[in-house]
């Protein structure tokens, strides 16, 4: 057996009311690399991502889950799971940057203070470390008390990444993190991911196949809620086994 999977999905079926979004997904995501989930719109990528830190709990519709989602071999939907702790271990960055209506500094420390951390020097240290990690420190170090909203779109998204990293997550889920960004900001976000992939498992839903190919270590192709193919990026994007993957990657549909 290879290295133990960080995240594993076993026969996962997921439905909103009676509309099944994910059909029988089996997936092993190894630790400390960039794992890309790609496919056309409506394939269930975002749902799969939201399942991994149980944001699906807040769906206004009724949801049905079958199968198992394991983080380090532990079922995250088991009744004794501490959901807050789970969301700290598996953080999330969204498509639209959502700085909270707070200062840059408070945005970063928000997650920590929720957990009751008040110690100023630890918090300051975290702010600096997280902003460095998200490649934003140099741009904002002199104005940490400005509102997060005052930053540009690209900076906001890196702020959101820094905010997630502040909790020292093991897994970071990114849902089209660069869809609203210009190419330079996109590059900066991608660089930040590359810098960190030694120590964090990134699961990325990219906003284009090109980005998928650019950042992925491994990738999985989802189509209409079905996992078509999964494998190392160099194989998946150059010599896919499945005809559908090849057609999508080469742009014949999608």
């Amino acid at each position: 057996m290879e290295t133990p999977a960080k995240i594993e999905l076993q026969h996962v079926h997921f439905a909103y009311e009676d509309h099944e979004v994910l059909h029988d997904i089996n997936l092993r995501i190894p630790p400390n690399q960039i794992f890309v989930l790609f496919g056309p719109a409506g394939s269930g990528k975002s749902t799969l991502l939201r399942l991994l830190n149980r944001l699906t709990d807040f769906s206004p519709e009724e949801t049905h889950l079958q199968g198992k989602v394991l983080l380090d071999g532990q079922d995250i939907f088991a009744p004794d799971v501490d959901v807050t702790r789970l969301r700290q271990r598996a953080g999330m960055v969204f498509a639209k940057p959502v700085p909270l209506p707070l200062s840059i500094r408070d945005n970063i420390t928000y997650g920590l203070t929720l957990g009751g951390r008040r110690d100023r020097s630890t918090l300051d240290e975290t702010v600096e470390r997280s902003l460095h990690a998200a490649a934003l420190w140099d741009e904002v170090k002199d104005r940490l008390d400005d509102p997060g909203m005052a930053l540009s779109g690209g900076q906001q998204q890196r702020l959101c990444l820094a905010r997630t990293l502040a909790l020292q997550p093991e897994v970071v889920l990114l849902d089209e993190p660069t869809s609203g960004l210009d190419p330079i900001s996109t590059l900066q976000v991608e660089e930040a991911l590359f810098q960190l992939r030694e120590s964090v498992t990134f699961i990325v839903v990219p906003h284009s196949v090109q980005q998928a190919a650019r950042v992925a270590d491994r990738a999985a192709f989802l189509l209409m809620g079905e996992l078509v193919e999964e494998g190392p990026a160099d194989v998946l994007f150059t010599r896919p086994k499945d005809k559908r993957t090849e057609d999508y990657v080469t742009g014949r549909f999608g």
Partner: protein
Amino acid sequence: MTTASASKEPSRAVVNWREFAVEQIVRLLGLSAIALVALIFAFLLKEGAATLQEVPLSNLAGTRWYPTFGYFGLVPLVMGSLLVTVGAVLISVPLGVGVAIYLGEIAPEPLRDVLKPTIEVIAGIPSVVLGFIGVLAFSPLIRQYLGAPTGLTAITGSVLLAYMALPTIISIAEDAMDAVPKSYRDAAYALGATEWQTIWRVVLPSARSGILIAIMLGVGRAIGETMTVMMVTGNAARIPTSLDAFLRPARTMTATIAAEMGEVAQGSTHYHVLFMVGITLFVLTFLINAFAAVALFRSERRGGGRLLS
């Protein structure tokens, strides 16, 4: 711009006098709204200004309101209004925002569908009816359980005013929270916030400009309200000196004007002073609204209150 002027060309050629007439009428109506406000203020000034010649300032700034004996101290009236209003705010704001949170964030759908219309019905109760309920049902309770010498006290007025302001505060505050994008909540949840932490630290701050407006509208209603206050506050013009004052009668500016205007000889000093009270009320309301506007403007400039980036 070009398309607009191009489409206007033919209509002007036909000399559409109807168009012109309608435009002028609408303009007149619009201007008349402004003129009315200006006239009201001018009228207040005209009737009230004589006060300054007839009554020395030291008397107006005095602590006694006995018009029959020539004491026209406005201080107890202003304090009375403030006392009752502050009490109403202290009661209605936490209650109103709390109910809004419950309605918007916590209550299950079917319950909300019953609660919302019910609350809106409260807004339709005429204030004299509320005053009636206050006198008969509520003030005995105050006397019995809070140890006040009489049931007609400032706090009685505050509670009833709070009740009147509640529907406004609740429905506007709830709308404001409803307008906070789902993405904010998701972001907070994804950082491990619980439902309550999300409401308290993300939803409420994001909605604060709307909530502030809700509170201001509620306060505006409370400070200008007359009938209920006149019926239940006991109308004794005294200066509050301690917290105890909530359990004593108070006399507000509005109640004073309403109660005395009918009795007073037109053109007398007392008559002029009552207009002075009106001017004071006008200025006070204006100041409160101005403060709210400034606070709102500040919080928006800091980027804190903005809903969408």
